[in-house]
């Protein structure tokens, strides 16, 4: 029996509108989206998270897709910030970046990133990546429950 893909609440932190569009489109196409929010930079992302935790019904994202290159506040800083905070640190954060530098990967993991994906330069591969990603996170991965639920 094939599992049913869950639908997730995803926060996408990406400054480039085009990239955001691409990711959003593909995630939608994979049917993994319950709701998708977008933050254009680190500050906005943190504010969003604060806003979420204040809400009555937990609207905390199930998953955060985080780009490394962000204006105002670096992606790694955001990662560190989120993983430090008791309220947010259990939310899985997957880095999504053009950088294939091993140093960046290492630093991300040192800051407790839950995954690291490199944006491919081929659309078909992009599609494949998002599909496999969605399969894993939607079908097979067990998400932690939030307190408020």
């Amino acid at each position, binding site marked *: 029996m094939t599992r049913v893909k869950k639908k997730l609440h995803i926060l996408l932190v990406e400054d480039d509108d*085009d*990239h955001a569009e*691409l990711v959003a489109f593909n995630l939608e196409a994979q049917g993994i989206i319950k709701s998708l929010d977008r933050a254009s930079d680190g500050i906005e992302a943190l504010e969003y998270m604060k806003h979420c935790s204040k809400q009555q019904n937990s609207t905390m994202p199930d998953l955060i897709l985080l780009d490394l290159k962000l*204006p105002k506040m670096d992606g790694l800083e955001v990662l560190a910030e989120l993983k430090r905070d008791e309220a947010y640190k259990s939310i899985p954060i997957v880095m999504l970046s*053009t950088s294939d530098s091993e140093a960046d990967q290492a630093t991300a993991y040192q800051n407790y990133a839950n995954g690291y994906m490199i944006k491919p330069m*081929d*659309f*078909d591969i*992009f599609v494949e990546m998002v599909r496999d990603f969605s399969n894993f996170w939607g079908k097979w991965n067990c998400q932690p429950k939030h307190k408020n639920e």
Partner: protein
Amino acid sequence: MVTESVEHSCSRGLMCNLLVMACIFIGAQLGYLFASYPGFASPIWPPSGISLAIILLKGRGVLPGIFFGYLSANLTLDHNSIYFLKSWWGSLMISCGGVLQPWLCSLMIQRSATWPQKSFSQSTALQFILIAGPLGSIIGASIGTFALYNYDDLSPQNFPHTWGTWWIGNCIGACLFTPIIYMTFQNFTRGLQYILPSLLTFGLTTSITIFAEIWQNERNRTEYISTLEHTAAEFRQRFEAIEQALISTKSFFQYTKFMDTKGFEEFAQVFLNRVPEIQAFYLLNVDSKSMSDGVPLVTYQKSKQEEELSTAQRKHLYEILGSTTHRLHDSHNPFYSEVITSDKHIYLATAIRYSNHTPRLFLLVKINTQAILETLNHSVPMSDYRYTILEPKSQAMITSAPLHPQDAVHTDTTKIDVGSTLWIFHLEKTSLRKSWMSWVIQMLSLILALTLSFVMINFRDRTEEIRREVRNQTIELITLSEQLKASNEELERFVFTVSHDLKVPLVTMTGFVGMLKNHLEKGELDKVPDSLNRIRSSSAKMSNLISELLNYSRIGRRKKAKKSCDLNKIVAECLTNLQYGIQSKKIEVNIAENLGEICGEYERILQAFSNLIVNAIEHGSSATEPRITIRSSQTQDGDLEVYITDNGEGIDPQHHQIIFELFQSKSESPDSTGVGLAIVDKVMKTHGGKVWVESSPQEGATFVLSFPREIVNARRSLT
């Protein structure tokens, strides 16, 4: 206090001068050791070198010391020394020469290329040696020789030899002693290193000189002796020739009982023609019959100019014979002759016997001393010799041309037995003529001294120079290699950053190409334009980025011509280009007058200003009344600082450094390529200046461009 220090320096000066005087005196004594003929000068003269070195070290103050050194050396010469000067004036003049030479030399040296010398290069060493040696010695030699000539009886023939020896002596002295003394004072240990080669050269030149002298003397001696023998022989020969001539006429007399005048005349003619040394010829008939008035009859005389002899004259001739007649009588030789002198004339008296009877005829042959003189003069080089042939009893003398009394050095006397008379032959030779061989040897020794001192000066200095060269080049190499490393690192960073940041638009492009394909497959034609737009803008972005990067990389690499840039003009041009943005955002722009003028690459400076103004426009526009101010000022060091201020949102201090790096833009604007400020930074660096920002959040930002004073064109003072 002042008088004390003056006195102190005076006494120091006095001590110094006394020391110098002593040094010169000792050096002179050393030089006198080499005294020899020819040339009343020393072929190695240390004082010329010592004095020059001391003047170069201590200056004019030591001149009195040198003067008195020379004077004391000259005046204390012993009578027997060849250098003994008879006149005070001569000594004074020589001492003046001794002072003038080093003084003028020092002036010439100090005026010539780059003095004082810490170290010599090849050409300056050559110059130094040539001025100190050959050139300078001309002064000393000329003055000294002239002094001797004027005041001390130097013969004109001796002038060139004296001058030459003096010149060589001063040259060698200067070459050997000046460098070593000078350098020892400059740097004692280095001076020590020179001492051995100096002593070696000194020893070598001394040996060569002494050798030359000894050899010269030997030659002179041998020549003298041979000349002596030769001339004596010549002299004897002349008389023997006359005797022989007379003997050959014996037969004539043998068969003539008595002679008639005509016969005798014929005989005489032949005889006289054969022997040029005969001046006159008297035939004295002592036959009692012809002794008319107690005086023999003279029957012939040579020259027709001589008149018939008077009785007195005849008597005189007989008297000349004098005691000779007895000896002529007593001798049993049929033909006996003897040389007699009278009245400073020389006669050959010959007695002719016919048989065993007493002699009847006396031939008195008056010798032509002039002719003999001429013959002798041919065999003796008259420029070098003088002779006197003297008959002691009568003081008859044959003498050659007088020699300068000073020139007569070798003299010797020998006795010549001619015609049973003992003559004294006195030969004088001037050995003051140097042979060419001796000159050659002396010149060789001079060249040796010059070469060795040149090599000496150069040798050590070269190693110093080489060491310094190597050090400098090593430093240069290290600097270059560090620069290269830094440049490589920058390149790596650049390449890394570039490839990294080009990926972003590439992802977009490929992504939306795929989306486009999707849309077309699904027939969603309304979504096509959007995708196409995004693709287009992405590729534009990429192209933009690439050209900015190329631009960035070209700054400093492709240098444009430097010219004078009026900063006000540049700012005006920027504002014209950006006027749309300024006007649309309603930004107030204040520009100071007289911002300044620098010499640089116009296009680059324009770019820098443009980028900064663009930034100011972008970030400053968040304020309610956006304002941009541009002014400048000059620092104390002369650097020109230009301030571009906006009143926008400001920049967090922690970002103040990083924003100038590539792709570290904190701007939200989609047009920001992240290269703008990096370009400004690079432009300033290539002009030798820098850029930095002073800002805090919400309090605007001031970007400061600092131009180094070397490229700032001096103008009226700025605010």
